[in-house]
């Protein structure tokens, strides 16, 4: 597969997941404010934006949240620009994508460009983004040949999901005054139902964190997602490896997963924000390692033309 196409697929995976997870973050933030009227809206807006990596200062107000995270096409953190990014990558890899997958991305982009997100009420807009993302992911899984290209798509999706889930966890961990913070994060991850089925209605912060971080069966937990990413990397790597991990990306992600899994269960809540920051860092390094190893062709040596 062409390196350039592989890179496009990887980024489709990342952008689509990013749009979905951003919608989930906005949703959980909205819930927190609704359920706990004592919340300071400005502080909550600032913590949400800073978790998403947006620079905040004393002028940042709750009115900045939706433009920065949802509507503003110029803001790299917005859902609109994530969808546009997915569509642009899809356009570059159009001959590789299945027709249905291309159309599902293209129609989502078109409707968002026509102002669909602004027309809907906020919760409905978040649901819309979540559903479209699920349609795209499902169409990809059901119509694409599960070859190398698909593995890159899955890898991008997983790395992005780990990164964004780490941000969600940070958001919950940094709102200690709110009793319902963890259960809202569970809801945002679509994990609330799964959690109740597993643990019953005895939500404690400890249990909720365990579930989101360590559950081996829930498809949005950190450990599960890291496992998926490692599997994708292993199937991309054709070399025979009898010793350790070949490739920086699998080594990094594997180490992070082990760090989560082999920690003393009682310490699961300890130093969460710092550990989540470290995890995000690992995602970004792993992403760079994948790029260097597989997409190197896309930054080809340029022909130097013109006057001598």
């Amino acid at each position, binding site marked *: 597969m062409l*390196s350039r196409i592989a890179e496009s697929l990887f980024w489709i995976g990342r952008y689509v997941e990013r749009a979905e997870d951003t919608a989930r973050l906005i949703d959980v933030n909205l819930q927190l404010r609704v359920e706990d009227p004592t919340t300071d809206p400005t502080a909550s807006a600032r913590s949400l934006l800073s978790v998403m990596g947006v620079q905040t200062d004393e002028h940042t107000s709750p009115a900045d949240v939706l433009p920065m995270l949802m509507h503003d096409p110029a803001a790299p953190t917005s859902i609109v620009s994530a969808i546009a990014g997915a569509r642009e990558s899809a356009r570059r890899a159009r001959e590789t994508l299945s027709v249905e997958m291309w159309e599902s991305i*293209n129609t989502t982009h*078109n409707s968002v460009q026509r102002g669909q997100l602004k027309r809907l009420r906020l919760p409905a807009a978040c649901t819309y983004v979540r559903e479209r993302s699920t349609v795209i992911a499902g169409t990809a899984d059901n119509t694409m040949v599960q070859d190398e290209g698909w593995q890159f798509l899955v890898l991008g999706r997983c790395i992005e999901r780990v990164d964004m889930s780490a941000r969600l966890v940070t958001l919950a961990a940094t709102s200690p005054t709110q009793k319902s913070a963890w259960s809202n994060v569970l809801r945002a991850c679509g994990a609330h139902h799964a959690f109740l089925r597993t643990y019953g209605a005895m939500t404690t912060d400890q249990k909720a964190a365990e579930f989101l971080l360590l559950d081996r069966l829930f498809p949005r937990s950190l450990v599960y997602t890291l496992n998926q990413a490692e599997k994708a990397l292993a199937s991309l790597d*054709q070399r025979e490896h009898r010793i350790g991990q070949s490739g920086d990306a699998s080594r990094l992600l594997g180490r992070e997963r082990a760090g989560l899994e082999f920690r003393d269960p009682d310490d699961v809540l300890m130093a969460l924000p710092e550990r989540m920051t470290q995890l995000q860092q690992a995602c970004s390094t792993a992403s760079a390692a994948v790029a260097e190893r597989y997409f190197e*062709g896309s930054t080809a040596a340029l*022909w130097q*033309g013109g006057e001598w």
Partner: protein
Amino acid sequence: MTQLFEDYASAPGVFDEMFGEDGLRPTYAALHQRLCALGSDEVRTRSDYLSSAYIDQGVTFDIGGEERPFPLDIVPRVIAAQQWATVEAGVKQRVTAIEHFLADVYGEGKVFSDGVIPRRVVTSSPHFHRIVARLEPANGVRVHVSGIDLIRDAEGTFRVLEDNVRIPSGVSYVLTNRRAVTSALPETLTGQTIEAVNVYPQRLLAALRAAAPSGTSDPTVVVLTPGVYNSAYFEHALLARMMGVELVEGRDLVVQSGRVRMRTTRGLRPVHVIYRRVDDDFLDPVHFRNDSLLGCAGLIDAARAGNVTIANAVGNGVGDDKLVYTYVPDLIRYYLNEEPIVPGVDTWRLEDPSHREEVFDRLHELVVKPVDGSGGKGIVIGPRASAEQLDTLRATVSADPRGWIAQPVVQLSTVPTMIDGVMKPRHVDLRPFAVNSGDDIWVLPGGLTRVALPEGELIVNSSQGGGSKDTWVLAETGPTQAQSQSQSGGGSQSQSQSQSGGGSQSQSQSQSHDGEGA
């Protein structure tokens, strides 16, 4: 509810393909009947469906970096089997003659020594490239894909307007138009058999594989695109996808020791045939424009070394130069010893002083075109131009008479087209596509019909506000009504039954149909 064609009036002196002086032409009888049966409102609804379908599918072209949906009209253009047989033979003949001519120009040059065409006509063409002289293509083919632009004059006779043997585009819309129109108007298909177009990618791939350098048993074919900002990117992606080959950009390729390779996730992989959609000038910075980033350095050398086939061949531009066009009838007689099957349009060679004088006197009634233009660029239509424009044109032509030709204003034929929900006559042309595999020149039945959407407009290019129509070539069998019904009894009819019926019975019907079918 008004009748669909009630107020339809074709312009005087123009050949309308649906309605003649004696009313409805037989070729369109079946289509007309089905459309009228649907009624105006329904046809309008279907027409809206078409435009939204193209937006959803992303069937677009780019103008200045902006992506626009390609307008597709609801009314198909129909061509009778007999008419098509003539067009097909004419296109084959022309392409054959141009192949001979290109082989001669870059080979022995007998056409010059025999005095058929002056050598300077070719050597003064900006598309003549000495670098490929004596470069013998692997299977002798230079024009792997061609698009011959045809029009129908006031009598309805097909005439060649220009040849495109470099990188003709538009075939992707032939494929998508057929799918979109048949799903919008499934009713119109019963009672007539239309030649299929979806075999094109298969034919193209076969021709490209046949052109591979000798000694490659399983050649790797790629499509080379200038990138997503090219106006025809949609087409490049579609062709690559439907042929099942990689779509590469210049930066994906690298030439090492005279061999072309592409950069993949598993390292460098060899490439044997490049179906390039990049112009000659940008193809290889070593030999052409050295500021080009769209091509790949060393490509021409690899081709000269016989390690890669570039399709269409470099230097083909001398074959579709509009001044050379005036010599094509002579070339057909010279190489094939035949008379041209499809006539051209009378053309004045402006480099000839007597021609120039005559043209300058009648400039207000003629069309003047640049010899290497495409996309309707630079064309001046005399009757529409102001006095100043004509003066400027005189000066431009006098400065570079080799660069221009003049033709009479040809009234293109019209076909009913839905404009704002009402049927209006609009001018059309036709670009049939021919694929040369070396053994055989195959002409895609139909081709791209482009339609000028503004009233009275004669330039049909999409960059000038043109749209397109699905083009139907009726099958040779010319079935009587009864025959065709019994034929389609196993075909489209039972299929529609199984769709609406849904039961187990219809399922088994559709299965048995699949069993017999294509």
